[in-house]
């Protein structure tokens, strides 16, 4: 319906044609659709998340069996808010509650990967199927990485020693009304939109340009082939993109439409969200370089494997 409205505006009202019209049509259609969905999804996710503060997750995980812990830690990563600036207190808080190191890492991989912006953008651009695949495989990477790190006995690589709390953990005495949660969620959504809108518009603009002007053959020859290096290159390129996740995704949408393989695209998107340099710099204060390297390489290998498997099955 919206597509028809934009089509008639560009081709009939403006009387445009050719490549410029195609690019403009794409730009208007995508911009409105993405911002509408971003607003709705971020608002809904933020509101739901306000019921699951990390403190509650910690209390829950500390009482569970480690094996079940990896699964629930990864799942909680989806519904809890995460900001790389609180990665340290979160990490130490988990250890303080005697949650095993591996389970903590399962959470630490899952939480940034399943952040509200990534989920909203994925849903807006690729639909629910790809979003579910992304979340599902993201959970798998988080669980397996956590299991591996847990097996390696790396507890001594945590540089700050926290004393495990005896008995009950300190309680947060807070009651928040639904009204307050809604206001807070709206404030947060507006804040995020303010931060990312320029990247999103720029991303869509470049995407629209590619959509209208760059020949499909060129993209297929660069990103679409099933050469063995496509997935690792996509993963490495994703690492420095962390802060621009919202701007990068519209590009990926166009690239996949033009023939980039979905597994390569998934690897890239996961690398953008899960392998964050700022987070690594922050964690460097409390973790040894060895542990951070193991953490990053385990997750990177997991992400690449998913890309390969996906390309192999669907390619």
């Amino acid at each position, binding site marked *: 319906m919206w597509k028809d409205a934009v089509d008639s505006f560009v081709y009939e009202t403006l009387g445009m044609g050719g490549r410029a019209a195609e690019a403009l049509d794409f730009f208007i259609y995508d911009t409105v659709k993405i911002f509408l969905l971003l607003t709705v999804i971020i608002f809904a996710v933020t509101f739901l998340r306000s019921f699951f503060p990390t403190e509650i997750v910690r209390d829950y995980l500390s009482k569970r069996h480690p094996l079940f812990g990896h699964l629930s830690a990864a799942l909680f990563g989806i519904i809890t808010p995460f*900001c790389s*600036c609180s990665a340290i*207190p*979160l990490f130490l808080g988990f250890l303080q509650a005697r949650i095993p190191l591996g389970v903590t890492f399962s959470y630490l991989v899952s939480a940034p990967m399943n952040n509200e912006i990534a989920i909203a953008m994925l849903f807006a651009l690729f639909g629910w199927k790809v979003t579910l695949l992304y979340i599902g495989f993201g959970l798998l990477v988080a669980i397996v990485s956590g299991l591996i790190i847990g097996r390696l006995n790396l507890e001594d690589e945590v540089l700050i020693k926290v004393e495990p709390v005896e008995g009950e953990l*300190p309680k947060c005495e*807070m009651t928040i009304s639904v009204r307050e949660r809604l206001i807070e969620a709206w404030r947060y959504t507006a804040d995020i939109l303010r931060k990312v809108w320029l990247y999103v518009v720029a991303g869509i603009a470049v995407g629209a340009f590619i959509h209208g002007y760059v020949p499909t053959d060129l993209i297929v020859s660069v990103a679409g082939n099933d050469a063995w290096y496509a997935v690792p290159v996509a993963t490495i390129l994703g690492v420095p993109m962390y802060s621009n996740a919202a701007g990068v995704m519209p590009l990926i949408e166009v690239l996949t439409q033009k023939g980039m393989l979905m597994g390569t695209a998934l690897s890239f998107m996961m690398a953008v969200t899960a392998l964050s340099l700022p987070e690594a710099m922050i964690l460097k204060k409390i973790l040894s370089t060895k542990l951070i390297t193991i953490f990053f390489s385990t997750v990177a290998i997991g992400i690449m494997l998913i890309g390969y498997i996906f390309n192999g099955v669907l390619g």
Partner: protein
Amino acid sequence: MTIEILGTGCAKCRALEENVKQAVARSGKFAQIKKVDDITEIMKYGVMSTPGLVVDSKVVSVGKVLSVDEIVKLIS
């Protein structure tokens, strides 16, 4: 009254500290404002999402920048 702001120095923590100062000035209360940036001190309160706000040793808010109005309500 003692008001503590828990945070390891992220932008949000500074914003909260600024709001706390304004709120205290507006409420006219006598309050001691303390910025806690030592991670082991923060952990003692069991807070994991910074910034956290502690009023008289009680955690009243975690993980968000409260507005000046909200803080005034909390401390009066």
